[in-house]
């Protein structure tokens, strides 16, 4: 295997010289920055006995927090999938005054300290805030301090991911392809579902995966708007912080490890989906 890679690299002259050097650097970099902390996390958790680990990981309060974290993240990423695609489409396809400003706005959730976002969202959507009050009077539903608030915050921070991954792909789509589909008799819907959507699908999945992953780890913006009611609106990162504040490092590491494993499995599944969508054209 290594032999094959080495000889292939020797045959093809690449712009960046020294396959061995660059590969070594890449592995080193990933190990120090990513792998090492993960391993440390597992070791920290393993200071406890398996029984203790199981007790912490399967604590009902923890399980409730997993459920909220994953479902809220999934819903938020799904919302972003739809509206991120729409936003990217509008930004690429329709020239309108102030397009650059709107384009810059998309990145704001990246730049803003998430705690600030959380405070701002809470101020707006609490029953004392302007939108929250109106919403509560009209529909009788609270947004802040409920699961809805969690989803709202996670949608906010995930917005840029789908837009920024899909945007270049839409820019790359030739308008002629749509015209070709129309001249062949395809309706607008058929053109979208059969021609445009398959071309966008890999980028959409990437954007979804990134938004989802980001939402899983989000802490700052959620804690303000969630209200942190045990069993209802506590997210797992919050439980980890609580454990840290009690100097229960091993317990925090245990919850962290659970999150990590689950996220990893989910991202693998999404990656698999992406590969499937990329090669689907070939099998017919």
């Amino acid at each position, binding site marked *: 295997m290594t032999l094959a890679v080495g000889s292939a690299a020797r045959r093809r002259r690449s712009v960046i010289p020294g396959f061995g050097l660059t590969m070594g650097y890449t592995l080193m970099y990933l190990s120090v920055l990513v792998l090492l902390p993960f391993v440390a996390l597992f070791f920290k958790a393993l200071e406890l006995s398996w029984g203790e680990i199981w007790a912490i990981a399967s604590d009902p309060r923890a399980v409730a927090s997993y459920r909220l974290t994953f479902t809220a993240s999934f819903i938020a990423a799904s919302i972003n999938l739809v509206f991120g695609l729409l936003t990217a489409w509008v930004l690429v396809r329709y020239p309108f005054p102030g397009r650059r400003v709107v384009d810059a706005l998309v990145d704001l959730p990246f730049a803003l300290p998430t705690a600030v976002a959380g405070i701002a969202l809470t101020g707006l959507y609490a029953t004392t805030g302007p939108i929250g009050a109106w919403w509560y009077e009209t529909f009788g539903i609270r947004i802040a301090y409920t699961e809805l608030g969690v989803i709202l915050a996670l949608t906010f921070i995930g917005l840029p991911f789908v837009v920024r991954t899909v945007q270049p792909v839409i820019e790359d789509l030739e308008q*002629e*392809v749509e015209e070709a589909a129309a*001249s062949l*008799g395809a*309706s607008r819907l*058929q053109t979208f579902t059969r021609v445009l959507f398959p071309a966008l699908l890999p980028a959409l999945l990437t954007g979804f995966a990134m938004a989802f992953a980001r939402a899983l780890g989000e802490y700052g913006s959620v804690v303000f708007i969630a209200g942190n009611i045990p069993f209802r609106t506590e997210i797992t990162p919050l439980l980890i912080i609580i454990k840290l504040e009690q100097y229960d490092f091993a317990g925090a590491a245990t919850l962290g490890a659970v999150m990590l494993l689950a996220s990893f499995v989910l991202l693998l599944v999404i990656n698999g989906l992406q590969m499937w969508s990329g090669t689907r054209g*070939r099998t017919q």
Partner: protein
Amino acid sequence: MSIEIRNVGKSFGAFQALDDVSLDIATGELVALLGPSGCGKTTLLRIIAGLEQADTGAVAFQGEDATRLDVRARRVGFVFQHYALFRHMTVFDNVAFGLKVRPRSSRLSKAAIAERVHRLLELVQLDFMADRLPNQLSGGQRQRVALARALAVEPRVLLLDEPFGALDAQVRKDLRRWLRRLHDELHVTSVFVTHDQEEAMEVSDRVVVMNRGRIEQVGPPASIYDDPVSPFVYEFVGQVNALRGRIVDGRAEVAGVRLPAPSFRGLDPLEAVAYIRPHEIALADAPGQTEDWIAVTVTDCTIAGPVLRIEARVAATGERLEIEMPRGGASLAPGPGARLYARPTNPRLFADTTANPTGRDR
């Protein structure tokens, strides 16, 4: 299916892309829209296809008005310069696309679709590529797939927008011959856009020369070349010498000689330009009996395969004159500095529109 275009006009903002264009295309004809970039040829093609709406005028297929008909309903096959293939679909699925998107009531069975697709792929000689993706094909192959895809829906007319424009010279040459043969086989009414006069001449039954949103001339390739109706067509189609002069008394004084210009009698005196094809010039060592032998000095002489290409300077005016003749005809090539006499055998005179604001000609 015949196409009638009536007084079509189209502008994009302040730019007048088409200005009162009318054209009839007969059933089974292969017509080339020829012109420089920005002349409106692609806009006209897109209006025929329904991809663009005319501001004024009408388009009809077989006498039936189609001006407001949506592109989906027009049943035209459109081939794009950059192929516009569906990248995530195989060659087979690309060609089958138009058949698969039909409403269920008029859709063919799976087997019938497969059969027709394979027949079309055989026609474009790409049946063995059915399972490939477009990016695994060469440019020429992609364009053939695009053509098969357009033909799959049995279009009433086939429209091609610079179909060979993105290909390299050799492939282009092969493909245009192949397109001509294909058209002779299928007889579907076809219109293609090109800026390459050689391509237009070689492939089409009729050439439509366009300039600045207007049609300059329509005719069979030979008549476009032999009998251009305007200076623009002269200069756009083929090589030509343009000599400036003046018409007085029904005769044109050009390059120090007099050319007969009976049709200008009564309009003179008039500034004029004489257009002379390089191969429509006779050369001699001494002037003949007529008064149209131009004294020239040879400046350069090159042999380009079977033709002898002579560059000369007109003695009286210093204008450049290009002369071409078959090499077999000239026993020896004249060297630079040789003094010869050149007689235009088929000159055409046009009023010099840059000098005469009225723009009258002939």
